[in-house]
């Protein structure tokens, strides 16, 4: 079974078909996807803006990161689950979309960026917690986060136009 056939099978499943053909479920899931995006990426953007020295610069970096984490995770969960259901309902249509594939490449890179930052640069946060100007690697993590999330949003919206 090719990847495309698997996607076709997912789309043709009972759940996929019901979501696609529903009047209210698809729009509601899509609304949840946008709300989840706003909460997760909105709070991630605040953290990244702190890292690059643009927002909340009077507050310690750890205060910003630790206190926003619950909101980020909640928003991300909503976005991820609603995204799975949206994919479920049109997997075969999404499979060939280059913007959809690009979105996942950038999501993967964002994951690596976050893991690398937390595993290395963030370990020394005690030394620069109160600094407006964070170390170069922290500023890079912030810039990469903001710009790659912008690409993800762009590609996600673009996918809906390419589908037609």
């Amino acid at each position, binding site marked *: 079974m090719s990847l495309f056939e698997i996607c076709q099978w997912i789309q043709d499943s009972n759940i996929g078909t019901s979501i696609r053909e529903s009047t209210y479920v698809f729009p509601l899931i899509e*609304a949840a996807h946008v709300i989840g995006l706003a909460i997760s990426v909105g709070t991630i953007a605040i953290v990244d803006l702190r890292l690059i020295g643009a927002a909340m610069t009077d507050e310690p970096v750890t205060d910003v990161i630790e206190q926003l984490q619950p909101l980020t995770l909640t928003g991300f969960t909503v976005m991820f689950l609603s995204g799975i259901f949206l994919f479920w309902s049109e997997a075969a249509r999404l499979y060939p979309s280059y913007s959809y594939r690009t979105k996942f490449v950038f999501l993967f890179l964002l994951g690596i960026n976050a893991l690398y930052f937390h595993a290395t640069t963030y370990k020394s946060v005690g030394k620069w917690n109160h600094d407006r100007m964070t170390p170069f690697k922290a500023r890079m993590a912030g810039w990469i986060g903001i710009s790659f999330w912008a690409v993800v949003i762009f590609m996600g919206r673009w996918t809906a136009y390419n589908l037609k």
Partner: protein
Amino acid sequence: MNLLPLFQWFDSTALSKVIRDSTYIFPVVEVFHLFGLTLLLGTVTVMSMRMLGLGMRRQSVYQVARNLMPWSFWAAVLTIVSGILLFLSEAMKCYGNAAFPWKMYFLGAGILVYLLWQRRVAHPDSKMGSGQLKVLAIVTLVLWYGVALAGRAIAFV
């Protein structure tokens, strides 16, 4: 009041035609609309959570508002300016749309609440009690999420 001629005029401006005739302008403007919405709802949510006592409690309400309110403001400017461009290109679609007026009511109320009430939170001399802050937090959450949801509904109703 008959708003039809007004919407017809919006629909017929030179800018409306330019956006309609291009394949890429509308989606690109809509992406910027989404950037603005993300930052606006994100910052409004964080400020409201603080006012409700549910987040960022190591900082005062004033500290959170002073830091994030300017970002909310400029995100709203980006969202509204891009929204006006989107509206111009499809004003007649909006005219007959059941969700569009709701989006405008929420938006108008959100702007009024910001001008008359919400922005005072970012003022150092603000003496709002915790009860008033909680009411304000819920009002702003309802209004701005209302704008977003009614906006998304435009495409479906």
